[in-house]
C-alpha cells in the first residue's frame, strides 16, 4: 500500500534562517506531488506541484522554492524565512491511474519568530 511521510511535524525557526521540509512517498512510482500551505482557520493554498523528477511548477510567487531530486521525494525550501512564511504545510501525492485523488501527509506546523 502507498504511504506518505512528511517531517518534521513541528518546526520553530527564527526570521532569516533557512528551511528544508521533506516529503517522501512509498509504494507507488511517478506520482504527482504537491505542497500546500494552510493559514490558521483558512483553506489550503497550492504552492508547488511536480509531475516528474526535476519538474516543478509554482502557483504563487513567494519566498519559497521546491525541488524533486528523486521520483518519490519532494522538498520545500527557503534561503531566508519571513514571518509571513508561518503556517501549516501539507505535502500530497496522487497517481496510480487515479490522479484526481490526492492523499495528504500529516503536515508540518512552521512558526517563524
Amino acid at each position, binding site marked *: 500500500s502507498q504511504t506518505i511521510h512528511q517531517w518534521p511535524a513541528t518546526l520553530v525557526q527564527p526570521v532569516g534562517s533557512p528551511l528544508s521540509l521533506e516529503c517522501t512517498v512509498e509504494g507507488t512510482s511517478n506520482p*504527482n506531488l*504537491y505542497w500546500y500551505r494552510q493559514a490558521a*482557520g*483558512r*483553506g*489550503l*493554498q*497550492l504552492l508547488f*506541484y511536480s*509531475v516528474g523528477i526535476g519538474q516543478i*511548477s509554482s*502557483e504563487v510567487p513567494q519566498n519559497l522554492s521546491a525541488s524533486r531530486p528523486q521520483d518519490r521525494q519532494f522538498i520545500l525550501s527557503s534561503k531566508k524565512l519571513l514571518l509571513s512564511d508561518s503556517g*501549516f504545510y*501539507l505535502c*500530497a501525492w*496522487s497517481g496510480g491511474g487515479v*490522479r*484526481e*485523488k*490526492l*492523499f*495528504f501527509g*500529516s*503536515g508540518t506546523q512552521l512558526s517563524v519568530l
Partner: protein
Amino acid sequence: AQTVTQSQPEMSVQEAETVTLSCTYDTSENNYYLFWYKQPPSRQMILVIRQEAYKQQNATENRFSVNFQKAAKSFSLKISDSQLGDTAMYFCAFMTGETSGSRLTFGEGTQLTVNP
C-alpha cells in the same frame, strides 16, 4: 481561474441529526471533479467523497452524500445521522480533468460541530 466558495464559516448540529454544508464553484471547464475533504483536530486531510462532473448520479459514501447541481454550479454535502466524530473542518475542493499536474482548489472551509 476556478474559484470555490463556502458561505458557511461555522455550523452546528445535534448528534444523530442531518446537516447540509453548502459549496458553490465557478469554472468554464466541462470536465472536472469535485471533492469534500474533512480535517479533524489532528489536521489530517481526509477525503470524504468525490464526484465526477460527467456523472449525473450523486455520489454517496455511507452517511455522506452530495447534491450536485451542475447547471447551478452547486455541490452540497449532506451528513446523515451525525456523530461526534464528524466534528471537523470541511473543505469543498475542485479539480480540472487534466491528466497531469491537476491542481486541487479549496474553499475556505466550514467548521462543523456535532453536539451531544
